[in-house]
């Protein structure tokens, strides 16, 4: 018997379907179905995954693309017999989705009337009036492509309904076809289907009752059962319809926008021409023959793989950025080519790094080329708008990201569906420690007060596990664009994103990869903003014109590398984190490629795969560098035999275990999703057997496999690291030569990076940069460089004043007299509201005109002064004004106390998040509140392994995924920041101080390895009460 299931919803019908497209096609094939249509509601988001599963597993199953729609009481399934029908479906979905806000759709009769290729399965509602109307309407417009779909769900009164449908079919001469309206691949998913229904309804399960499915008949059912339920003719009809559906997703071809190539030229010749032009700019003294040979080789490869348009699209984008003076930098597998260097897509000089283009782009590996372009984060929107403008919304849209249930969201939603109180769920979510190696989250539920034997708790555990990985909604990819020659909906439907004026396609990047469609990544990078601002400041104040490529062309500057080796890297790109800083003095990068390694090695992947120590030992000559074979040597020689980059791992699988290009690509994807799916396991035997059969030791093979697992999703590609290293170097160079400009630019580009303004300014002061306070007469909105005092000082910007509105600041600056404001009244007249004035007073920005904070506030509070009548009088009669203004100021200052130094510091922190006065710890020390505490600077005099006491502001509590049970606490005092290591047992024994202290005193043991110093915490004491009103919050557990 042949049967095709023509109505089946996957979990991309969010919170309706309870199985993945992969599960559905696999099960349908196992049951012996001839075909399966994936028909999610107004969506084709799941079809590519089904398509991939069918292809990868070579299932004997025909996949049909379709979608189900609701319009009032009309329920209709549209199926795509041809490519034209697919484009039509794309148009209908796009129109219905674009009419509605994100996640919804709104179909109109007109949409349906315009359908002329798609097949239609109609599901009557049982409402006579509506059914009669639609039967006539559908028959009028779509006769010949219309069927009446018959279901058997074993629900109550079903026979009546079947009779009713029979009668409709007779009345309108409709052919009947059986369908399952499938929501699950197996009956066992019923519990989960109930659960997602409850989540969708926003009610607990027990309240839903009759709204839930009454049985598990909406699963894929075995053929013999279907044969009992349906007349043979209806079943045969399904198979006949399937036989008429010839459309296959592989037919979708990407058409690049033709306008990129001038008339009369081919894409290939135009690219060649552009590269030739670019090479003259990049190699002013003539292209070296070796480089020219590389260029020719790369162009040949690009042409062979037909990627010219891809490079041209990116070239067009960066040309736009250049015209607008937006800083950018390309990265990714294809970006580090000489071609990209010549097209000015990247600034990575091929002479500086031994670029092997094929290392990044390879025929064998069948990966699509990947170029991400980072733009200044504050100006990326201009680039996006350029794209929309150039290609139109019909032809350009963002790639989707599927937002899936993760542990916490799954626990919260399942818990609610099972009727657990929200406060209890919040409590569980906050307190379950997923990284606790000693007990699983299921065990922790027990210790957190949920009876682990109770039914609810068992159901919770099972459902949470099942629900994890289910998609919740489509969101927009950070910057991946799809651009096409014709309307995009012919390729894939487009819907609205949450952000206004953004549209996303219904597929994510993996789907595009499966269909070999290319995307262009337009990403945002804060450091590029900072670098551009710094270039501008240097131009303005030092009259020197800089560029990324220019700084790079100066060659490796050892003075800059000395700064990096000392870990003096606060504010630098990529190498500023605690972990990076502790590695820098050990690795001692001395050239560009060292930085490439440095950036990639301090990642969870290499750390978990235990690659760091072998690399360090080999680099310091403590361990001989050896290779098991010449082939492996070729892959690993540049990293001393230790695999550090993702590309090396893939290459190893090919070289040492004999993976084909396609297999290696599957391995790469499995690595990307290893934590979620465990897909990597299936490669284990192949990898180890392959290596052993090529003569490698089992031990070596096992180690490589472990390293691949460790890499998991955290592996870092060399192609990205190479581009990041350029920016890291440029930021270090700027910090070394133009520190004041560098900090100013950085502060004006926040939020970005690891450090708060307070930490950046303290670092600036340590580099002898003078910092001036925020002032109503001296500050601009941004931080500025001031020529006084020499060499250059940083003046705090009004942007740092908490609570000051941008509009208020604009008024202040607009009306500021040349000689500055003289009294509060002028600020009021400028139009600043009382919130803005209070904010300024709190930041002590009014000190120049109304004394200290207390007095400024006292004057601001005076209602009589702010009366309009009064203020007019003041401006008219200048002589009395002076008298009036002076007298109360004198009178009031006697009334209020003067702020103490500690008050000032605390207020500074409250109002601006930083203080230029004494550090609070310095004040506490002066007041004798820190007996026997060593300063951070003083730690260098303490011997290894000796006891020490240190106190500081807690600026960071970090529990890295790589270090089980360890928390790093950063303690800041007036001399710097110290790293404290707290072991799990220590933390648990002293939870209060550990979790809540803002000022912490630590008694512990100092440990020093090379130039890295830690304090291993013993006793923790909470000193927060010494500063009761303290407001600077630490960044906890990021």
């Amino acid at each position, binding site marked *: 018997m042949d049967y095709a299931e023509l109505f089946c919803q996957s979990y991309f019908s969010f919170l309706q379907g309870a199985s993945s497209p992969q599960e559905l096609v696999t099960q349908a094939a196992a049951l012996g179905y001839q075909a399966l249509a994936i028909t999610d509601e107004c969506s084709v988001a799941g079809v590519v995954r089904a398509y991939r599963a069918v292809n990868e597993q070579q299932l004997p199953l025909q996949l049909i693309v379709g979608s189900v729609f609701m319009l009032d009481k009309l329920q209709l399934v549209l199926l795509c017999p041809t490519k034209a029908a697919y484009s039509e479906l794309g148009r209908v979905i796009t129109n219905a989705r674009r009419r509605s806000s994100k996640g919804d759709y709104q179909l109109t009769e007109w949409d349906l009337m315009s359908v002329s290729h798609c097949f239609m399965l109609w599901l009557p*509602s*049982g*409402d*006579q009036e509506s059914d009669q109307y639609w039967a006539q309407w559908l028959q009028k417009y779509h006769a010949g492509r219309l069927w009446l779909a018959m279901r058997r769900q*074993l*629900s*109550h*009164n*079903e*026979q*009546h*309904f079947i009779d*009713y449908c029979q009668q409709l079919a007779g009345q309108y001469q409709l052919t009947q076809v059986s369908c399952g309206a499938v929501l699950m691949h197996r*009956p*066992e*998913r*019923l*519990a*989960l*289907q*109930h*659960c997602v229904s409850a989540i969708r309804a926003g009610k607990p399960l027990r*309240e*839903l*009752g*009759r*709204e*839930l499915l*009454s*049985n*598990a*008949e909406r699963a894929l059912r075995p053929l013999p059962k279907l044969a009992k339920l349906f007349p043979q003719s209806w079943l045969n009809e399904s198979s006949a319809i399937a036989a008429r559906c010839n459309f296959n997703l592989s037919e979708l071809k990407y058409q690049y926008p033709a306008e990129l190539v001038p008339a009369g030229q081919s894409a290939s010749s135009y690219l060649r021409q552009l590269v030739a032009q670019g090479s003259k700019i990049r190699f002013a003294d003539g292209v070296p023959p070796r480089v020219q040979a590389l260029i020719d080789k790369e162009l040949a490869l690009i042409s062979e793989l037909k990627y010219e348009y891809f490079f041209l699209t990116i070239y067009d984008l960066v040309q736009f950025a250049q015209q607008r003076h937006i800083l950018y930098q390309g990265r990714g597998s294809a970006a580090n080519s000489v071609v990209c260097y010549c097209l000015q897509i990247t600034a990575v000089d091929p002479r500086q790094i031994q670029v092997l283009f094929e290392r990044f782009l390879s025929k064998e590996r069948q990966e699509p080329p990947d170029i991400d372009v980072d733009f200044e984060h504050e100006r990326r929107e201009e680039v996006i708008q350029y794209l929309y403008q150039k290609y139109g919304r019909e032809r350009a849209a963002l790639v989707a990201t599927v937002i899936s249930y993760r542990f916490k969201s799954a626990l919260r939603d399942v818990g609610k569906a099972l009727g657990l109180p929200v*406060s209890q769920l*919040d*409590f569980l979510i*906050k*307190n379950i420690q997923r990284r606790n190696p000693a007990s699983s989250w299921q065990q922790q539920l027990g*210790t957190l007060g949920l009876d682990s034997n109770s039914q609810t708790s068992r*159901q919770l555990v099972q459902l949470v596990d099942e629900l994890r990985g289910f998609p919740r909604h489509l969101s927009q990819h950070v910057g991946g664009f799809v651009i096409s020659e014709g309307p995009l909906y012919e390729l894939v439907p487009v819907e609205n994103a949450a952000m206004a004026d953004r549209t996303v396609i219904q597929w994510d990047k993996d789907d595009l990869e499966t269909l070999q469609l290319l995307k262009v990544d337009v990403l945002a990078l804060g450091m590029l903003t900072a670098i551009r601002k710094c270039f501008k400041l240097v131009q303005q104040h030092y009259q020197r014109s800089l560029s990324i490529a220019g700084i790079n062309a100066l060659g490796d500057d050892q003075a800059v590398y000395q700064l990096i080796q000392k870990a003096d890297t606060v504010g630098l790109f990529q190498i500023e984190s605690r972990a990076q800083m502790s590695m820098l003095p050990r690795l001692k990068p001395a050239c560009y490629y060292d930085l490439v390694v440095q950036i990639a090695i301090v990642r969870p992947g290499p750390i978990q795969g235990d690659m760091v120590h072998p690399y360090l030992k080999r680099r310091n000559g403590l361990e001989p560098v050896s290779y098991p074979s010449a082939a492996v040597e070729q892959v690993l020689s540049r990293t001393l035999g230790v695999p550090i980059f993702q590309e090396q791992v893939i290459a190893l699988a090919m070289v040492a275990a004999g993976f084909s290009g396609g297999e290696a690509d599957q391995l790469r994807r499995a690595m990307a999703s290893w934590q979620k799916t465990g897909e990597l396991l299936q490669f284990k035997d192949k990898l180890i057997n392959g290596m052993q059969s090529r003569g490698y030791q089992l031990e070596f093979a096992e180690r490589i496999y472990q390293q691949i697992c460790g890499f998991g999703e955290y592996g870092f590609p060399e192609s990205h690291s190479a581009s990041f290293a350029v920016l890291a170097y440029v930021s270090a160079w700027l910090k070394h030569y133009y520190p004041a400009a560098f900090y100013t630019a950085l502060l004006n580009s926040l939020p970005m990076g690891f450090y708060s303004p307070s930490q950046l300014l303290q670092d600036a002061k340590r580099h002898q940069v003078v910092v001036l306070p925020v002032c109503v007469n001296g500050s601009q909105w941004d931080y500025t460089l001031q020529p006084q005092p020499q060499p250059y000082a940083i003046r705090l910007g009004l942007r740092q004043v908490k609570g000051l509105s941008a509009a208020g600041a604009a008024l202040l600056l607009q009306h500021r007299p040349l000689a500055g404001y003289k009294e509060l009244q002028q600020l009021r007249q400028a139009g600043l509201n009382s919130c803005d004035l209070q904010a300024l007073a*709190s930041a002590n920005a009014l000190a120049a005109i109304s004394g200290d*904070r*207390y007095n400024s*506030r*006292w004057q601001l*509070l*005076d*209602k*009589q002064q702010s009366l309009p009548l009064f203020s007019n009088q003041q401006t008219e009669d200048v002589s009395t004004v002076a008298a009036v203004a002076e007298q109360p100021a004198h009178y009031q200052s006697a*009334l*209020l*106390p*003067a*702020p103490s130094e500690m*008050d000032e510091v605390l*207020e500074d922190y409250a109002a601006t998040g930083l203080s230029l006065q004494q550090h609070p710890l310095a004040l506490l020390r002066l007041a004798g509140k820190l007996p026997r505490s060593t300063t951070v600077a003083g730690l260098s005099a303490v011997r290894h392994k000796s006891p020490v006491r240190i106190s500081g502001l807690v600026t960071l509590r970090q529990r890295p995924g790589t270090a089980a049970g360890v928390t790093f606490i950063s303690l800041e005092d007036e001399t710097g920041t110290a790293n404290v290591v707290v072991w799990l047992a220590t933390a648990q024994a002293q*939870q*209060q101080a550990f*979790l*809540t202290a803002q000022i912490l005193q630590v008694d512990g043991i100092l440990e020093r390895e090379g130039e890295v110093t830690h304090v291993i915490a013993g006793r923790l004491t909470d000193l927060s009460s010494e500063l009761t*009103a303290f407001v600077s919050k630490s960044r906890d557990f990021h």
Partner: protein
Amino acid sequence: MALFLYLHFPSLQLDNLQLSAENSQNLAIAVVDQQHQLLQLNQSAINAGLKLQMGLASAAALCPDLQLLPYQSEQQLKVLNSAAQQLYQLSGDIALDPPAGLILRLDGMLQLYSGLAPYWQALSAKLHELAYRYQYSCGATPYAAKCLAYQQAALITNDAKRLSAALHASPLTATELTAPLQQQMARLGIHTLGQLLALPPAELARRFDSQLLSYLGRLRGDYYHALEYVQPESGFSRYLELLYDISDSAVLARPLVKLLQQLEQQLSRASCQCHQLLLTLFFRDNPKLQLCIGSAQGEYKAAAWLQLCQLQLQNLTLPEPVYGLQLDVNRFAGQQRPTEGLFAQQQASMSALQLLSLLQARLGRAAVSGLTLQNQHLPEQASQRSLPLVKGYVVKGQAGLAALALRPAFLLPKPQPLTEAVTISQGPERLCPDGWQLGAQRDYYIGRNRQGQWLWLFRTASQQWFVHGWFS
């Protein structure tokens, strides 16, 4: 000079609970408000490092086995009120200051007790007996006393200088000023009441609203602070000794009418009604007998209550003659009569609630129940006994074929095995108890037996047949 004492009970709800629950001392217990902040802590919780106003998550991290109670303002008010009632025996003028304080006016009491010390001795003994944790202080005004009590000043004195000095040194956090206002003051460098009181009122008036000035005025005693002193509790309690012993319960109605009429008078004076009476019968040898008579609707009329009482008395066999009657009503309720339409036809007849009261009085509460429809697939859960007059699940306006499933009028409490031959006419309808028990699914059919009866049948997954009901 006027003198006030303020008593602050920081953990009234929790302390009250601990009095009744044994062995609770070792457990860490906290009362939390709706924002999940800790409001009250017992000693074990304090020992674990918990602090007031702390968030629940930090609290749970510090003390994983912390027991939580939601804050119940009404209950706390009751406890506060009962504390006031008990102190009323010792001290005349007591005003409630919810949620956790009592204001006692002392100047009148000092004469009675001849001095402050004896008064405090008596009062603190009583407070000790109450066993609630408390903080206290005297003060020249209610607000002054409250402010000092909040700081646990524990001043029992009428020395004006001492009190004033203590008040001036008080931090603003101990005052009634709102948190934003306190913050505003702190941001002017003003942290104590002394600093605030030193500022010229005219300057303050130019800058702050009248609330601040009115507070300061009352604090200083410049403005009158009206207090509403508690009155002894109300209620109804009358004892009636019978002139002669009554052995027939029906005859008891006559004296009872008198009591009920008195009750009616008091209720109508207070515009109240009541839902429950407690009738106590006293015997010479046997222990007294208490009857509880309820009216679901609430009633004040003597005649109506009499009818309800008689229904209960009818069923009663007296062990021996009664010599006394006592009628108690603990709570009066406000009048809440459903407004009936002027021309409603049923004016004269009984309301559903009245009928219910009658039936319950006659048959006992347990014997009367309602039947409601539930929102469930499974037949045994689809309808259910409930409290009388409670509305169940209402089927939404689905029309035609999608409407409610066909169910028999008579459902067997427990399905019986099918023992006769039947002809199946409809089915199957497959029902699954829930997603966890696919094996327990049943296929329901409608069938007819030889006698022509319509049966509701099901077949289990193991192919066994059962009858679950009959269609009428």
